[in-house]
């Protein structure tokens, strides 16, 4: 049941949280994935094992970590290991169920660029590879989120291989965990999935108030659309309460949140000077 008014950001977080099953071993980056993990853990997936790639494994997020090695965001955790081991003994060895990854640019087969909008050294930089290529290759399934990124026909720089050229190319290469790859892409306009055989991205569900035409306007190829187009999952009160308990600022778009936080600290500074 949903009795509260909810925001675009909250809808996206809850959609991501619903991708986590109870007991899943998940790798989460700072930002939306951590909030989704916190919501899932407080609602339908209390035994999900949440990890950050620094080696903080099975943590209970209390507040947003400031980076992936920020243990001050969790009241203890079950297993302290290190980054190399997270990649080698957990991810590559086959024990990572879900990876949550952010997208800079993506093509129709789920290949991802998070590095450069061209070739180095003279192209603008997006960010860099981080842990994405190996998590994307060896997690059993990957959940992608994109806000402010772009769909492109051809990536100028391929950071993290998805389904490569489509079809069974990824599987046949033998280089990836069998059955792995992107399961779903969440954006503020819709949910995208990948065709079982061709591995081509298609529109699976629309964000409330968004039309197919508006989705297609962002996409440089002729996007396929599911025959039975679904709706974006509607959050319930428990999920919204868990989200707001964890991070009240997460209900707002990032620039708005940054401004609200700044104003709050300005007020606090004025107060502490008075005292």
């Amino acid at each position, binding site marked *: 049941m949903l009795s509260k008014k909810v*925001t675009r950001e909250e809808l996206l977080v809850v959609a991501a949280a619903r991708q986590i*099953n109870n007991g*899943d071993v998940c790798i989460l980056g700072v930002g939306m994935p951590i909030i989704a993990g916190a919501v899932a853990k407080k609602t339908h997936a209390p035994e999900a094992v949440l990890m950050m790639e620094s080696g903080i494994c099975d943590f209970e997020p*209390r507040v947003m970590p400031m980076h992936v090695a920020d243990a001050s965001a969790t009241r*203890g955790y079950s297993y302290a290991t290190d980054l190399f081991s997270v990649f080698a003994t957990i991810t590559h*060895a086959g024990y990572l169920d879900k990876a949550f990854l952010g997208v800079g640019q993506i093509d129709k087969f789920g290949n991802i660029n998070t590095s450069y909008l061209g070739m180095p050294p003279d192209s603008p930089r997006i960010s860099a590879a981080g842990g994405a290529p190996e998590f994307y290759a060896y997690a059993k399934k990957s959940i992608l989120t994109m806000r402010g990124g772009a769909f492109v026909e051809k990536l100028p720089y391929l950071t993290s291989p998805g389904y490569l050229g489509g079809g069974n190319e990824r599987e046949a290469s033998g280089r990836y965990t069998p059955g792995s790859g992107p399961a779903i892409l969440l954006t503020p306009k819709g949910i995208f999935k990948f065709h079982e055989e061709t591995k081509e991205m298609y529109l699976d569900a629309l964000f409330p108030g968004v039309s197919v035409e508006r989705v297609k306007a962002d996409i440089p190829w002729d996007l396929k659309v599911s025959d039975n187009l679904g709706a974006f999952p509607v959050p319930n009160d428990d999920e919204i309460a868990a989200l707001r308990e*964890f991070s009240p*600022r997460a209900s707002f778009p990032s620039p708005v949140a940054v401004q*609200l936080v700044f104003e709050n600290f300005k007020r606090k500074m004025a107060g502490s000077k008075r005292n």
Partner: protein
Amino acid sequence: MVVQSGSKVMTTREAITQFVKDGDSVITGNYNESMPMSLLFEIIRQKKKGLTYFSQSGSLDGEFMVFSGSVDKMFSAFVHKWGGRERGGVIEQYQRSGKLQIEDYTNFTYNARLFAGSCGYSYMPVLESIMDSDVFKVRGFMGDKKFGTTTCPFTGRTIPVVPAANPDVCVLHVQRADKFGNAQHWGGLGSTVHACLASKKIIVTCEELVESDVIKSSPHHTIVPGFRVSAVIEEPYGCHPFELVGYRGLDTAMFSLINQAFKAEDGLKNYFDEWVYGLPDRAAYMKHYVKIFGQQMLNNYQARSYHSAPANYGIPFQSGWDHNGISHDLGVDREGLEQLIEKKGELVDVK
């Protein structure tokens, strides 16, 4: 992977029945210390057949496992001769009579195989000097697959490599674990961590089954995460007569009894009848110990506490809200947040 609460907690008998099959390769997680004797006794009692046993430092565990008839093959880097010079060890006798095949590695190359296995690699570089040793040159049942060589693409040098090892089952005894299998162990770790992480299934006995919060307050003591563990058993004295720091020392009284058994004709057979086959479980074993040796003897070996200094894992905020119900980030209470969302949030009509 769906984990059901508490489903991993079981008895030693259930765990060995469920997770150790004839023909499996079995490794002891513990390196000399805290040997998982209760789990090994149960493997012997259940008369498993055709096992391949990984034993880095083949001590009592190796001798017992081989004598039981459960083991056909062994990987080892060291073999202790329990029967002394004259009689020799059980492992030695079985190897020489053709009842047991052994592939010899060094401590380092044995561990490199486990490290590779734990990482999901197919092989690992080892150190060049081994190529001059007969450990490299003399091949047992692994044949060509015991060692290989490759060329370093950066230096052009010939590098010896070992194949990854992924044993079917690791048996392990630790100080404490929670119901999910998060296992905490401290002491001389040896090859323990990679023996566990390389294995397909892990069975953990622990002195104490503790609340998960105990584990969460000391994550640096966890050597294997719960999601890797198949079974957890609270089994006090699960490693007796071996030592476990924080609990007890090596029981030299029992060791001298075992020493005598190795020396006497039929001694080991009689020992097995009395201490392994004759007793259903570890609780009965400890009761029998007290009957034979006396409680005072057992008490002699109990550890006197010497606690590690607690590490402070404290954090400033338990949620996005302070104890007055004000958001750290936004400076409003919960009602204020709802007003802010109405004013500044991008509301969505989900109806």
